[in-house]
């Protein structure tokens, strides 16, 4: 039976047929109950209603002409509806048939989980403020202020939920305790099948408001249309996650020229392949289902002339920045924890190997050691001035390696001087 315009309690959907005057109104009454069981956007429900209405009208007409119903309209309507199968089951089947194909989502979610796992297991702790990756933010003219953080009454507030409240009551309670204004687009939510009076079966005693909101959101979320909330500028917003995300999309550009060149040089690949590797890394680890290239509609990126332009919600930008920060940016000496510069080790710094070179009189290996030392010195010259310890140390290593090579080469040639390179 129907209890009130927004609250639905049904014993048997076919009960609605008993009170209807004719076949048309009986079909419409049943369709009214049936379509409310489907958690789908109203536009889709409306189409399903129209399609089934036409089916039922034709079927009733045929049944009335058949021997079984023999002109009994009421029996014909009931039979036609019963042929559709159990009402709730049918509604569920329509829901499944009208939601995005899960196969691709599942594949991408697997990648996302793997990515999150890899990040969680990483040795380096994630610090969004860390890193010297040059990032430029696009800001429209006039946009100067950042969103204000929510007040302590919200971030530190606590709430108790009895477990039998309607969604709108809980959100009002949250807003009151957190001293925030509440903004909910109920029309948008109702299109997604979430009503104001959706029951929330979450019982909590004195927990942080943010934790309670997460649990309430999860309990009323639909997998096809996940919900979310935001607290900012004295407001708490509750709505469709995708729509909240879409509003937070920002355009950033990251300087990845050195990273691309280093990957290309160190791994003997083209810069084009190196750029593609970076893009693949990001689209497979940072919320894969949201990238346009993966079939999503929230984020996209383009790499042009050594700059990576990423248009995505702030949440995704933070992850993108962290991943890019983990990639090599240049061959400059690494800064150690004490702020000093770690000299880059070369073969001649390793005593055992130096002895091997000397004892074997291995000219090709000595040549390589010298080339490495020269390459290292060349790079250090780009970053350090003569007279600094790093510069002087690298210069000496280069000179030593050169002297060692010339000595070995002279010995190999019977003291005839260094071979030409």
């Amino acid at each position, binding site marked *: 039976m129907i209890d009130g315009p927004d609250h639905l309690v049904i014993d048997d959907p076919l009960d609605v047929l008993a009170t209807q005057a004719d076949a048309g109104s009986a079909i419409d009454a049943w369709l009214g109950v049936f379509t409310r069981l489907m958690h789908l956007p109203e536009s889709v429900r409306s189409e399903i209603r*129209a399609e089934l209405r036409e*089916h039922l*009208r034709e*079927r009733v007409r045929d049944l009335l002409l058949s021997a079984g119903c023999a002109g009994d309209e009421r029996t014909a309507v009931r039979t036609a509806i019963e042929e*559709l*199968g159990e009402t709730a089951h049918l509604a569920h089947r329509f829901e*499944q*048939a009208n*939601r995005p*194909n899960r196969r691709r989502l599942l594949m991408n979610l697997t990648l996302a989980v793997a990515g999150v796992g890899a990040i969680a297991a990483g040795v380096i702790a994630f610090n969004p403020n860390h890193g010297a990756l040059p990032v430029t933010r696009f800001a429209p003219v006039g946009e100067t202020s950042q969103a204000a953080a929510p007040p302590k009454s919200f971030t530190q507030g606590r709430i108790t939920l009895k477990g039998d409240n309607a969604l709108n009551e809980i959100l009002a309670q949250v807003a009151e305790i957190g001293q925030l204004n509440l903004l909910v687009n109920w029309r948008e939510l109702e299109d997604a099948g979430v009503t104001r009076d959706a029951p929330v079966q979450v019982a909590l005693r004195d927990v942080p408001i943010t934790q309670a909101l997460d649990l309430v959101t999860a309990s009323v979320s639909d997998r096809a249309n996940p919900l979310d909330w935001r607290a900012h500028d004295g407001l708490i917003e509750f709505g469709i996650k995708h729509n909240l995300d879409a509003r937070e999309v920002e355009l950033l550009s990251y300087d990845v020229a050195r990273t691309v060149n280093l990957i290309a040089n160190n791994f003997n690949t083209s810069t084009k392949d190196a750029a593609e590797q970076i893009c693949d890394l990001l689209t497979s680890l940072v919320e894969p289902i949201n990238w346009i290239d993966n079939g999503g509609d929230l984020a996209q990126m383009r790499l042009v002339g050594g700059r990576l332009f990423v248009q995505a919600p702030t949440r995704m930008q933070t992850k993108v920045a962290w991943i890019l920060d983990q990639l090599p940016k240049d061959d400059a000496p690494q800064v150690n924890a004490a702020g000093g510069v770690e000299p880059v080790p070369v073969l001649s710094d390793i005593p055992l190997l130096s002895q091997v070179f000397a004892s074997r009189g291995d000219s090709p290996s000595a040549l390589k050691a010298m080339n490495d030392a020269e390459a290292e010195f060349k790079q250090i010259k780009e970053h350090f001035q003569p007279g600094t310890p790093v510069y002087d140390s690298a210069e000496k290593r280069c000179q030593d390696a050169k002297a060692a090579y010339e000595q070995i080469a002279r010995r190999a040639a019977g003291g005839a001087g260094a071979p030409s390179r």
Partner: protein
Amino acid sequence: MSDDALKSPSPAELFKGSADLVLLSVLAEAPLYGYAITKQVAAKSGGAIRLTPGVLYPLLHELERDGLLLSSWETVQAPDNDDVERGRKRKWYRLSAKGRKRLAQRIAAHRAQQKMIESFLPDRA
């Protein structure tokens, strides 16, 4: 062994898992709407296969969602009335190019399966 195990499978049981193949095949011949599809399937199978609306409509929506079918709405005119009956609409389905490709794949797979099963069967039971 129970008596049930010796029973021949019904056409409905044999039909399980092939509903999409039947549906795509029927729509390959001509565009149809839901109720007409149930009649067409029943007629072609001599009444042996009854595509129930509870299976048919969700399947049509699924195939449409996957891009195998295309649909369009037609305003229905009652046969005994020249006026267009208000609010009556009929949804017609037709095969898309992707649907035709899928049908070809399903037919090939079905024939291969038939051939494989055939190879196990004795000449005379």
